[in-house]
């Protein structure tokens, strides 16, 4: 029965995404290649002072991304620090400086790590005018960067890679906003709330009292998922009944998370003029996604470990309406897409099961990854895979007609370096710095022993990969973790983007090498297999030791 439900749920996801793949991917390709601006867009360009017809060099594009994101951090930080004077603050005071910094960085970087409990910390204005806006634009930035890289492959001898402001506005207006409006209505039908009621108190059946929260939730929930952001309106995130009331809304939320990342490969294939390339990329994503879901579901269903064994099932931290499959599918999706929303508590998963969300992130968020970030991350891995296979067939490697030379490899290699370094260094420093360690042990870690190490490892993995989910027992609202995780999020987002855009520039400047039978086809199963293997191997080799110390040691006990 369990197996049947799992297969049917997976089939639902597969069918819906397969149906979406072509039209939605093509639509997005049109959005980013169309020469015509909408009237409203022309108005916006006029107001913000942008020449929409002028393409930018990769440096100018990067300047746009960084400036826009910096302004975003500043605004969200400021909104929080002035919270008590804002309308609908619900009487809540301004969060601390370190928390405000952490939250601002977290939402601008598309991470949506939450060191705080929203009900107890943030009023409505910060949420809808600060956080929800970043949910839209950080997603649009992610897609823009991916599109810029795709243009690098598609363009020939070009000094430019598109216009950031145009990509940003089009992505927001033509893709995210329309779906968000429709999605919000669907969620409200399912029971997601949308009001400005604040906390109301009711007298319960037994004569006691209960607080019922309110807030503009549906409008934020939909973009939280569609933009693979993940920051919940409530502390319990998508397991909160007001964010995710039924099993079918949960499935809808899963589809929202996957829609863009799984369709972008089509956009990529379309833009480089070879749809088979998109199919190859999406196949790698799908294979890893399905494998991850299957393993996690098997592990959680088996319910190994002392507490799950005692309880008769791994139901701690899971909602009855979702059950195990509804939870594992959501967890696989959320950690595979860099969303980080949860409808169950990963901290309470079985030891090995808890390793799977971590692994999804450690893969570098490519199963299928965040909006945009998933595509550029897997294209970087493809560059590495192409390089190795190019050597194996005796030709200077080329991908989509672009030579992968020292400069390209340097940028790809630097990209690959960033995330593991942040994860491992952050975790190690948390235990190595005197003073910090005591605080981490005494305040932050919730579950003692091996599992506590996993909590810290999970936190840095989540931050550096801009995921945002957590082993939520960890109390991260401390100066060290707020700051260190904030830095990890910032570097984990923007350093790779620098390399991606530099790579885009370097590729765009190249001419295309013609395809011959000596060229390695990058759309065949062999390459799909190789790319999958490279993705898994890079992760496995990097993280095997810490995983052995954490989840593996705990799970093999």
């Amino acid at each position, binding site marked *: 029965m369990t197996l049947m439900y799992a297969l049917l749920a997976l089939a639902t996801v597969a069918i819906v995404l397969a149906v979406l793949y072509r039209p939605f991917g093509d639509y997005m390709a049109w959005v980013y290649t169309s020469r015509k601006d909408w009237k409203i867009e022309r108005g*916006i360009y006029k107001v*913000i*002072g*942008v020449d929409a017809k002028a393409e930018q060099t990769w440096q100018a594009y990067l*300047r*746009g991304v960084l*400036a*826009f994101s*910096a*302004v975003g951090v500043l*605004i969200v930080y400021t909104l929080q620090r002035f919270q008590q004077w804002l309308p609908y603050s619900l009487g809540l005071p301004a969060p601390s400086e370190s928390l405000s910094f952490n939250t601002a960085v977290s939402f601008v970087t598309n991470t949506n790590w939450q060191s705080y409990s929203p*009900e107890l910390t943030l009023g409505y204005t910060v949420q809808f*005018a600060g956080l929800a*806006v970043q949910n*839209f634009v950080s997603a649009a930035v992610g897609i823009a960067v991916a599109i810029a890289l795709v243009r690098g492959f598609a363009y020939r001898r070009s000094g430019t890679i598109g216009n950031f402001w145009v990509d*940003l*506005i089009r992505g927001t207006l033509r893709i995210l906003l329309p779906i968000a*409006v429709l999605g*919000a209505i669907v969620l409200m039908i*399912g029971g*997601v709330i*949308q*009001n400005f*009621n604040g*906390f109301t108190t*009711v*007298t319960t*059946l*037994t004569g*006691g009292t209960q*607080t*019922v*929260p309110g807030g*503009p939730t549906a409008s934020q929930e939909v973009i939280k998922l569609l933009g693979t952001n993940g920051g919940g309106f409530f*502390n*319990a995130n998508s397991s909160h*009944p007001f964010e995710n009331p039924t*099993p*079918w809304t*949960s499935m809808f939320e899963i589809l929202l998370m996957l829609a863009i990342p799984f369709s972008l490969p089509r956009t990529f294939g379309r833009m480089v003029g070879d749809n088979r390339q998109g199919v190859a990329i999406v196949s790698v994503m799908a294979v890893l996604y399905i494998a991850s879901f299957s393993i996690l579901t098997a592990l959680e269903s088996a319910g190994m470990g*002392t*507490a*799950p064994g*005692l*309880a*008769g*099932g791994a*139901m*701690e931290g899971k*909602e*009855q*309406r979702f059950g195990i499959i509804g939870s594992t599918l959501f967890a696989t999706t959320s950690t595979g897409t860099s969303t980080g929303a949860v409808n169950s*508590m990963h901290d309470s998963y079985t*030891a090995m099961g808890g390793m799977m969300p971590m692994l999804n992130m450690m893969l570098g968020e490519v199963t299928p990854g965040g909006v945009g970030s998933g595509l550029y991350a897997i294209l970087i891995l493809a560059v590495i895979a192409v390089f190795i296979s190019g050597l194996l067939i005796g030709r200077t490697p080329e991908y989509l007609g672009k030579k992968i030379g020292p400069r390209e490899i340097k940028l790809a290699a630097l990209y690959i370096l960033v995330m593991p370094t942040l994860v491992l260094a952050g975790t190690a420093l948390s235990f190595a710095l005197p003073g910090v360690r005591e605080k981490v042990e005494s305040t932050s870690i919730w*579950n003692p*022993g*091996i*599992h506590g190490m996993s909590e810290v490892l999970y936190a840095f993995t989540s931050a550096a990969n801009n995921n945002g989910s957590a082993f939520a*027992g960890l109390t991260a609202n401390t100066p060290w973790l707020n700051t260190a995780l904030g830095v990890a999020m910032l570097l984990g987002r923007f350093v790779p983007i620098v390399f991606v855009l530099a790579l885009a520039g370097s590729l765009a400047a190249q001419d295309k090498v013609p395809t011959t039978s000596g060229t390695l086809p990058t759309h065949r199963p062999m390459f799909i297999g190789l790319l999958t293997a490279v993705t898994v191997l890079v992760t496995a080799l990097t993280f095997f030791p810490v995983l052995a110390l954490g989840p593996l040691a*705990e799970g093999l006990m």
Partner: protein
Amino acid sequence: MNTQARGVGRTVWVAIRAMVLLTAALGIGYTLVITGIGQLVLPAQANGSIVTTQDGDPVGSALIGQSFSDEEGNPLPEYFQPRPSAAGDGNDGGASSGSNYGPENEDLIAAITDRKTQVAEFNGVTESEVPADAVTASSSGLDPHISAAYAAIQIDRVAEARGIPAAEVRDLVEAHTQGPDLGYLGESRVNVLELNIALNELEG
């Protein structure tokens, strides 16, 4: 150098204008539109699926689990009991949360052991009959549902406490048992608040 600085300055100025514009559109405009639609078209859901008794008094939300205990926190035998909750002091709608205990956490192991004994004792069943959801805290701490199995072991106790035939209670439970969505999404579940309201109405 100068032109570079001017370039950066210009970019920042564009960024500021863009961010302000987008905040107005996506933060305020979009939120208001959705709120308008919700309040006009779907007011019940948008305001939290509040359930009322026959008298019309709001007693909670159909989506939010609540406690059925006395002031000391002891479970009331005449009501179906929800899952353990880690939200605040239990089912606190202002502090949703799971327990976040790891699978080998000593506190969790102790809690499950205790709950198992307590639930078995409370319902007069053996510990092996106690299902997993009865002894584990939910993810949100506000889980409005219990499994059909947990409802089943509570039937006799509730019927006895209320002095009504168990069959009647069983029928009620069955009527309130919801299968998986579309037949395969999620789990079978019983909404505790709605069931208890129905129980009260049965008597009332």
